[in-house]
């Protein structure tokens, strides 16, 4: 596979501990602009840790390695700086924040990003019609607008809300942490349509998943298999199908 000189995201030899326990162990991965890469792996292989470290969640200690995003040292940025620079994490378990309105969060997030880019605050009317349009794509009801962030949402609604936020913020790098977990097939298709609608030569996605299912709808350019904190194998989309057929033990065995 050929790689452009400066990938959107370059992770080199990344090692991470949580509470003193080694989770990522010399992980190296390159994600060029315009591509969708899947990171698959068994439970406990470090998939979610990778997603969180990239977003800047506290509690993870990077013991070695580098992460470069558009040529910048990503690990040196605070979580909010990463977000404003175009990095988006779709949470596996989005938190409920009763009392903080969905529209407020969307607007505050978008304006934070616009401010970073030297743009004026978004016009309230244009903003609402833009949000409504994207809500239609995600098949969300209007009442959602007035509710608290994820408040009383079902698992599927929370995931759709994550994708809606992504559509509003239009990140350059989207990291989706098990966005498919807990979704029925209809919701999965909606979520996939949302992810696909953002595909473009300037944007990249890192899709973290345990199952191949989502990858039938969001077709990846590259599939990486994560085992015990490092990439054990990379390949094209057929690798996902093969994993599904042969199970993770196949790769785990090789990596051991």
């Amino acid at each position, binding site marked *: 596979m050929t790689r452009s000189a400066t990938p959107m995201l370059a992770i080199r030899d990344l090692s991470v501990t949580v509470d003193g326990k080694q989770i990522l162990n010399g992980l190296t991965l390159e994600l060029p602009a315009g591509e969708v890469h899947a990171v698959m792996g068994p439970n406990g292989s470090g998939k979610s840790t990778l997603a969180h470290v990239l*977003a*800047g*969640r*506290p509690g993870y200690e990077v013991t070695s390695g580098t992460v470069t995003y558009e040529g910048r040292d990503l690990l040196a940025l*605070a*979580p*909010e700086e*990463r*977000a*404003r620079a175009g990095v*988006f*994490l779709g*949470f596996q378990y*989005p*938190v409920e*924040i*009763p*009392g*903080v*309105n969905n529209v*407020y*969060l969307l*607007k*505050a*997030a978008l304006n*934070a*990003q616009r401010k*970073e880019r030297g743009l004026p605050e978004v016009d309230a009317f244009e903003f609402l019609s833009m949000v409504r349009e994207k809500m239609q794509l995600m098949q969300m009801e209007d009442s959602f607008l007035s509710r*608290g*962030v994820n408040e009383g949402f079902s698992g599927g609604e929370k995931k759709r809300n994550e994708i809606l*936020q992504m559509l509003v*913020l239009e990140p350059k790098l989207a990291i989706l942490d098990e966005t498919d977990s807990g979704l029925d097939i209809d919701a999965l298709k909606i979520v996939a349509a949302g992810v696909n609608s953002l595909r473009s030569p300037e944007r990249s996605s890192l899709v973290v998943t345990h199952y191949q299912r989502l990858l039938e709808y969001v077709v990846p350019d590259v599939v990486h298999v994560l085992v015990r904190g490092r990439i054990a194998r990379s390949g094209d989309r057929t690798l996902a199908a093969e994993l599904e057929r042969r199970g993770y033990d196949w790769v785990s065995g090789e990596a051991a």
Partner: protein
Amino acid sequence: MSHPLAARIAEQHARAARALSAHLPGAARRSAAMEALAAAGLPGSRDENWKYANLRPLERASFTPAALTAPDSAADAALAAALPARLEGFARYVFVDGVFAPALSDAPAAGPAQFRTLGAFAESHDTPPAALLPRGELGADQRFALLNEAFATDGAAIHVAAGHEAARLELIFVASAEGQLGASYPRVELRLESRGQLELIERHVSAAAAASFVTSAVSAQIGRGAALDHYRLQELSSRAILFDTLTATLAQEASYRLHALGSGAAAARSTLSMRLAGERSALTLSAAALGDRQQVQDTYALVEHQAPHARTEETFRGISAGRARVAFNGKIVVARGAHGTDSRQSLRGLLAGPEAEIDVRPQLEIYTDDVRCSHGATAGKLDDHMLFYLLSRGLDHDTAQRALKWAFLEDVVARIEVAALRRQIEERLAGRMQDGAALRELI
């Protein structure tokens, strides 16, 4: 009570009694209260339930009613500007330093709720309502009500007739006198006859930044099947001192929903005593307190379940920032025979600064079987997961924290069913938090 303080109160009381018009009703009541107070004394910080209150201001307070010492309020126009916006459908009655201000108030109108001032009894042949406090054993928790009774010369007496139509009233108590010039004694006596309904807003505000000394007392008798929705907003100036006492008694199937929001005063102490005396009566107490700088917001709430199958739902949310102290001590006592009691307490405190203090304390005393009582109390910082979620969307730290503080109060604010009032309160709370303009976006 320390001797100098007792002597000072008694001496000021005697002078006030001489200065008062002989026509004012309740002279006997006032002097009886003074005698009881002299015997019992005011609580001290060593008294149970008074540990968190700031009692020091008593040492330099003047107890003489401001209405006796301050010039007659010709400044009504200036005061009018300090009043909050009118709420549609609510008849408004304003008291300045505890004394009724007709120029700022609606004319008392006929309707299901009869509003009278205690002073008005002077011109009629009616006897004013009986003493607010039962005589006899008065615990430390009722002694500021005694102080109110000893000095109050006016107040609101509200009588809601039996029936179904809900009445809506707003009482505003404006504290305008400086503490050195005199104190004020807001006083409310409520009686709801059977199935009477009342929505009552009770506000305590300041004119300008007066360092007033306010001792308020409210009593509510809620009759059989009656419903009282009571909104209490304490928005005094940041130099004011408040000692507040509320007592309520619920008859069979009575419902009392009390919403208390305290964000003002330098030091505020609220003592709530609620008695569920009738079967299947129901109490909802939702309270929020905000403390900043060196403020003290202290609430003690006693709920006594005395009859079977009564319910209590108690919610408190307090935020303490700066070097403030915010305390809520909620005690629920289930008496012998009060089987089928259902009580829930959810008390939560949020520490918003390294030097701030939060004390939330649920207490439960149960003297019968077959009850369902639950309580939860937490005090801590902002939720890390929520904070990271907002940061991961690009919000800066300050904005994210403000949004979460706001969300923390939501459990209490969302229960305010009078929409226009809720909006006023949200504006007020937003203004009380740093960078309120940004918070208004949340409303």
